[in-house]
């Protein structure tokens, strides 16, 4: 520091001394003060490189409706509008714009249209194979959507999903073959079986923790496989049970049969999606989002009956799975033991995991990927399974919640990186960088930060033993210029975390507190130190402020 800025000590004379109103502070050792413009001359730019900020508008942003009437349409019979659109003012231009807060319905619609129109676009030589694969996809996707309700929404880690579907399929096939039950009764019958099955395995879900429950359901799955493969009535000889009644007339042309199977499975998928929407998107789903795993106790304390909600979902979903089992039997005229295979369970798990547990779109996409690999790219041979395994492994290793969690994960990662970058560039309490300024609407605050930084840099040069001693001797009243400048800065601080004293009795003892700056929120106790006299307490506050200033 140059001579002009180095404070020198001198003996300060109180201007009030002639009046004899100095309250004991006639004169004091103090320091000379430098020109307060000093930090402004020393600092004429950012210490780090600054970069242009801003994001190019590369897509169309629709203007708001303005004076035109906006007739909003609803999903009958709910009060939900077709799209969740909000009007807002662009922070850069003050122009009114529309924003679609939830674009998922658009994507769903496009994907479902693609699935519905898909068969038209299939290459001719592969139409049959693709329709077959599509039908399989539809059924498995429906199963997985239900499963993700159990694992995701209800947080019950059940691996008995295919056991429910299989049992319903076997029993309904058996009924159809033995008693000639027509195909349209198979699905309701399957639903009843699913419900019975659900009741049976819901009870242990209340008593067992996740991992043990998974083991138990896996065991059940195996038990059923062994039961059905060894029982004669269920066709231990033929590797499955075939000959049930079907809605597909064997007299039709093979391609027609494939089309019917495809669209029937598509219908089943859409029905399962509705089920998902009505459970996950309504009261039950919301209740359970209050009670995620490991926080059940808190939710219960808030009055959330999470057990009841979980079991309700479990039973509804088991019924749906049973229905799918009946549908399966009716579509394929029976069922093979492979439905109980451990491989089926694992592939199903892969489907659910890859897309992201707890989301319908995750279950559907996962199923699509796995079925496409397994049933369409047959010429790849056994390597298909390695690819499926690799995809699953990659999801588990790198993604938090499947493909559909990527966006959130990416945003979180970007926020983390942003924090890291900023911490290397920004100065604590210093001026705001161009990238930080984008987040602040009140531009006055940007100047305040600049001013405050300069002010603190300057005042730090004034914190010397002389002024601390002067304040200790005389906290209130006229002070030397150096001390007065520091005090004026301290007193002008914003209300948030501003120091004050709390008196236990009418005249002490005192403790230091800090105001909240928020109406109705009590001040906080800063520390436990107790001051007997008011002057000591005032000096305690001063020292704390000096400490904060030097730390910043």
């Amino acid at each position, binding site marked *: 520091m140059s001579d002009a800025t180095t404070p020198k000590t001198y003996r300060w004379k109180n201007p009030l001394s002639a009046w004899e109103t100095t309250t004991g502070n006639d004169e004091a050792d103090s320091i000379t003060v430098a020109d307060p413009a000093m930090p402004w001359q020393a600092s004429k730019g950012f210490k780090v490189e600054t970069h242009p900020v801003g994001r190019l508008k590369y897509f169309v942003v629709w203007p708001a409706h303005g004076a035109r*009437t906006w007739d909003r349409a609803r999903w009958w019979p709910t009060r939900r509008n077709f799209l969740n659109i909000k009007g807002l003012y662009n922070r850069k231009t003050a122009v009114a714009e529309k924003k679609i807060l939830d674009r998922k319905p658009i994507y769903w619609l496009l994907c479902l249209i693609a699935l519905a129109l898909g068969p038209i676009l299939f290459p001719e030589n592969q139409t049959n194979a693709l329709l077959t694969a599509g039908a399989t996809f539809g059924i498995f996707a429906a199963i997985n959507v239900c499963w993700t309700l159990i694992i995701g929404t209800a947080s019950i880690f059940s691996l008995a999903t295919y056991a429910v579907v299989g049992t319903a399929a076997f029993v309904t096939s058996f009924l159809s073959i033995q008693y000639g039950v027509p195909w349209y009764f198979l699905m309701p019958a399957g639903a009843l079986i699913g419900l019975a099955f659900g009741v049976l395995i819901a009870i242990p879900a209340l008593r067992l923790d996740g991992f043990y429950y998974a083991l138990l359901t896996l065991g059940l799955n195996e038990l059923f496989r062994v039961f059905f493969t060894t029982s004669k009535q269920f066709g231990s000889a033929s590797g499955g049970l075939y000959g049930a009644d079907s809605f597909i007339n064997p007299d039709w042309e093979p391609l027609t049969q494939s089309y019917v199977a495809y669209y029937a499975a598509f219908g089943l998928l859409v029905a399962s999606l509705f089920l998902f929407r009505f459970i996950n998107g309504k009261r039950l789903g919301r209740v359970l989002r209050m009670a995620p795993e490991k926080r059940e106790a808190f939710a219960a304390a808030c009055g959330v009956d999470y057990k009841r909600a979980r079991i309700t979902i479990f039973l509804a979903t088991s019924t749906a799975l049973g229905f799918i089992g009946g549908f399966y039997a009716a579509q394929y005229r029976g069922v093979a033991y492979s439905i109980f295979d451990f491989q089926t369970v694992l592939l199903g798990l892969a489907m659910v995991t890859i897309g992201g547990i707890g989301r319908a779109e995750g279950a559907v996409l996962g199923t699509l990927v796995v079925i496409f690999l397994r049933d369409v790219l047959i010429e790849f041979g056994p390597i298909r399974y390695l690819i499926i395994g690799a995809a699953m492994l990659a999801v588990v290793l790198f993604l938090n919640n499947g493909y559909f969690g990527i966006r959130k994960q990416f945003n979180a990662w970007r926020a983390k990186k942003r924090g890291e970058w900023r911490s290397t560039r920004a100065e604590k309490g210093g001026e705001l960088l161009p990238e930080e300024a984008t987040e602040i609407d009140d531009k006055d605050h940007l100047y305040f930060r600049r001013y405050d930084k300069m002010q603190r840099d300057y005042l730090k040069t004034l914190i010397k033993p002389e002024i601390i001693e002067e304040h200790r001797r005389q906290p209130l009243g006229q002070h030397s210029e150096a001390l007065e400048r520091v005090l*004026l800065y301290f007193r002008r601080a914003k209300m948030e975390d501003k120091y004050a004293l*709390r008196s236990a009795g009418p005249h002490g003892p005192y403790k230091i507190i800090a105001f909240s700056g928020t109406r109705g929120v009590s001040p906080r106790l800063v520390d436990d130190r107790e001051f007997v006299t008011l002057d000591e307490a005032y000096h305690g506050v001063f020292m704390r402020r000096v400490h904060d200033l030097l730390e910043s």
Partner: protein
Amino acid sequence: MAQQKIFGYANRISVKPGEEITFHVNCDGASEAKAQLVQLIHGDTHKDGPGHIEREVDGPANGTWQVKKQFTQLGSFLEVDDPQQKLAVTGALSLMAFIWPTRTKKGIRQTILGRWDTFRNAGYALGINPAGHLEFWVGDGKEVDYVTAELPLLDKVWYLVGVSYDPATGRAEIYQEGVLNRYNSLIGKVVPYEFASHTSQKFRFKPSHLPATPFLIAGARDQHELRGPFVSDHFAGKIDRPAICMRALSRKDFDELKQGALPPKDSVLAYWDTAAGYTADGIGPDVIDTGPHGLTARGVNHPVRAMTGWNWNGRDDCFRLDPSQYGGIEFHPDSVTDCRWEVTSRMTVPENLPSGIYAMRLRVGPGTGIAEEYIVFVVRPRTPKGKLCFLVPSASYLAYANEMLSFEAHIIQPMTGQPPVVTDLDIETYEHGEYGLSTYDHFEDGAGVCFTSYLRPIINMRPKHRMSGMNVTWQFPADLSIVAWIDHMGYDCDFITDEDLHREGLDILTPYNCVITGTHPEYVSERMLDAQEDYVAGGGRLIYMGGNGYYWAVGFAGDNPECMEVRKLDSGMRAWAARPGEHYLQTTGEKSGLWRNRGRAPQKLTGVGFIAEGFETAAPYRKMPDAWHRTVSWITKGVEGEIIGDQGLAYGAAAGVELDRYDLSLGTPPHTKIIASSGGHSDNYVLVTEELLYAYAGLVGSLDYRIRADMTYFTAPNNGAVFCTGSIGYGQALPANGFDNSAAKVLANVVNAFLKSERLPGQQWSLEEKQWR
């Protein structure tokens, strides 16, 4: 056990013997409180004074009181008187209002108008949703259906908002259009904002109506298990000319309303003409319905009127010029002017109780801090007895009632030059927030508080309380130092309040030879000022014991003397500034602000007026040359040396806190003499803003000669006289050293002289001097 706390208020601040006073108490953690009537003598616990002094008095209400938890309805709103349930509309309806919202970004629901039960989801209402968008909703007792505007509402911009709803088709259409002009809103037309929004939705069901639901403007009915029905979802901001029609109005109809037309005559169900009913003397809290059923809307917790409306043109700056531009009524969710608690106990003031300052002392549990309450009231004489009268500045107590500057105003520490010292009582009141604000605070939306009343606990109108920002006694407890001195001197003194003076005028003062004021009689109504001026002109003797007195012009509503109104504006040391066009009192039609700006600077009555304030130190007075003149030398008789008031409970001397100065240019009577003046004030003493034309460096104690307290004296017609101390701290200096000090001596000289009915001393020395020296 819950923390024990007790708070209360009385229905009156001034009573005569034989009259009844009721007490209203809210208590937590106890069901019984010990009640004791006490006479308050001194309330400053400072070690240099006599400490807290109270005398227990036999009273009919002494003993154990049954107390309980009582709830306070916060927030101002209008409740429509609709006994025949005309507004439980089952057919088509349209709602409309001009609004100027102020809290759209707070993330809470607000109701503009409607017949809505929040707890039971029944009825209909137009409001603002938590995202800040206009919304109309209906409920059938189970579910709610709603239509929301596309664009969010902007704060402090005038809109016409409305909805037309036809249950036959289920169609509800929102109407939202900006009606800002060059003056009426925060922003002007250079901002590219689009304000219009017209959204329609088909509702799935019709609203159901509960008989008990009131139609409210700026609030909605809610229910609490312990408390019963109350009002929540308050609206913050202004509402102008709300209306309800019994058909679904078309866009064209609304567009005509936007031009200022009345709602279509054939379909209007109620039209609250908020601009109707103004007189030259102001307007009351009730709003007239000019529709067919005359459904008057009653104001609760004083919604603020005389506010500019949607059509304010910026030219007419008072409702008296054109009431039609003053339809704006401002609502605040955190305003309270009457706690409306049940009566806990009542007392007829005993006939033999001498005039004085009394309190009902209530204690629960430990009986200290928040477990102790003093409900203060003044007992005035049935007929005037003494020659001395202490005028209790109750209007100024109201102005400061429950101030929380230390907690909220970042200017308080630079102003006082010290960190505040808060107590549990201050924290409890701040945290609780149910006892209302002072005229030094802001509502949560930033608007200044202009109404204050004593129908609520006032924690700083108690003995022992210290104002946290300054750490000295302030107003009521500071005035007790004067009371203690009067008691010590044994004067036969009657006590009356500002409220009595405002109501009864000059007659209440004429029986007395001498009237003595409090330390800080800052808020005065025109009638109070007139009475004191006439009293002095008619031969009365006034001792103005303070600083910064006779400063703000205030009003009281005729039927609500317990509630005072003030608007702070233009200049003066002020906590907030009224918006343009809103400078006139709704209670009286007068311009508020400083008396000085209305041609009645305090100098004209007292000789001195506000010049500076500072809070960390104080200074003594030193006799001025005129003190030796025989016309006034009797005032300082017996004072040794030239220094007066070098001790005191407020920063150790008599001249401090807020100071007044002699100024001929502001109307100080020309024959006024300055007996003594203080000097050597620290730089924390700064010049007041009304003195400022240009601001320049050095307007502080050690650099500006004007910053001082002047002790003045002048004689008035008919043997009248006025003596001023010119400093708030003077009162707190009286008890120092066991009441034996120079400040007390000077005051005794003056009071003793003033009490004598004969000619004042020194009057005979009035010839032009012919001097050898």
